[in-house]
């Protein structure tokens, strides 16, 4: 057994940052939610189902889920130029793939469900926070869904598998084997809908990381569930 790494934040290896969530934050939207993990804050709004424009994008077989992810220019220390970029384009698609398996749009041919996701404050783990907010917003909008989706990153710091890297751990940690980020998304019955690896990790440790994230996704589910059920109070 290798010696467990001491995290700068004081968190245990399998400890995630404090999380909170709220549903119904944008009155204009058909569904909306906020998800906060440590210093990372995501907001999401759902509009639809509505007619897909332009027409050539319509799918006559089923409705389309369309996710747009972006970071507000001032959500990070180094200002981002407003508008889409390569990173946000990829993450938008990743979020779509993470959520599409649970969303049931067979009865909405030629329609689109738009999910707009913005990071108002970023401290790593933004795609996971975005997916969690988006899943809540979709449910809140009354979109038919087989399951909820909960997202969290596991990772590795030097030789230790850990949960939920923060900004320092993700970008500035350089000891030994450095840091590895493994964002994942799970349905509430434990299936993976999204996984990425960015770093350096063995097969055995990756398996360990997946189990760790799966366990944590249950806690996120509880927070999402609570936020949705508090909506009418």
């Amino acid at each position, binding site marked *: 057994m290798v010696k467990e790494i001491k995290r700068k934040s004081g968190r245990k290896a399998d400890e995630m940052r404090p999380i909170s969530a709220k549903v119904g934050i944008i009155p204009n939207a058909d569904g909306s939610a906020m998800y906060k993990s440590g210093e990372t804050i995501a907001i999401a709004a759902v509009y*639809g189902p509505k007619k897909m424009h332009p027409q050539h994008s319509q799918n006559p077989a089923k409705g389309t889920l369309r996710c747009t992810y972006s970071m507000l220019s001032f959500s990070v220390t180094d200002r981002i130029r407003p508008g889409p970029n390569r990173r946000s384009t990829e993450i938008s698609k990743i979020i779509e793939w993470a959520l599409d398996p649970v969303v049931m749009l067979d009865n*909405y041919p030629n329609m689109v469900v738009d999910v707009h996701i913005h990071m108002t404050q970023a401290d790593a783990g933004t795609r996971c926070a975005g997916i969690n907010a988006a899943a809540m917003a979709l*449910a809140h909008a*009354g979109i038919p869904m087989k399951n909820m989706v909960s997202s969290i990153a596991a990772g590795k710091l030097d030789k230790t598998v850990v949960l939920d890297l923060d900004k320092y751990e993700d970008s500035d940690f350089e000891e030994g084997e450095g840091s590895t980020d493994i964002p994942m998304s799970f349905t509430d019955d434990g299936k993976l809908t999204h996984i990425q690896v960015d770093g350096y990790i063995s097969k055995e440790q990756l398996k360990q990381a997946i189990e760790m994230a799966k366990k944590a996704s249950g806690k996120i589910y509880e927070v999402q569930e609570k936020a*949705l059920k508090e*909506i*009418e109070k």
Partner: protein
Amino acid sequence: MSERKIVIPGEVIASGDDLLLGEGTEKRGKDIVALRFGLAEESNKLVKVIPLSGTYQPRRGNIVIGKVENITLNGWVISIGAPENAFLSLMEVPRYVNKDGLDEVMDIGDMLVAKIWAINKRGTDLSVKSRGLGKIEEGLILKVNPNKVPRIIGKEGSMIKMIKDNTNCNITVGQNGLIWIKGDKVEDELYAKKAILFVAKKSFVSGLTDEVEKWFGKNGRKK
């Protein structure tokens, strides 16, 4: 399960082979699982999820309030707050309409009360042939979440009757969440609007009728 409870997608509502699957549910093994966010309800062995949110889904027979978006050669394109626009053919208007004079009957931006008489692959077809349907000449239009409409109408229309009686207004509630209020004075209409928004906001409370009665007591204006 005796009481209604809020469920989220994927949540097990009840278990048992003798239960029947209602809207918004699916069977997984012995479990009946929610396929959407809403209020789960079990009555006479039927388990279903009543929507609390979401856009309006048109149904045949629904009375809706809509707005003229466009005029075509043979009818009007009507927005009813659903994912797709509906269509009112000039054949579904209770009098002869000259093909050149569609805009004299109803122009773009006009509001109307209509009935959904058919839903098919082509879309949603409206009719204004029955009594009480047709162009709205005057009054206030209000929009609420379409899922709140049953509470605004109340059991056998009791809630909406109470609001009408207390505000001296004629009120037509469209199933699509658009509501038409017509009173003698704008004040009356705004009073009715306020009352309806109160009901919509409190739609979740049990004993809502009492709450609304109290509200009228507190906010009461002379009839």
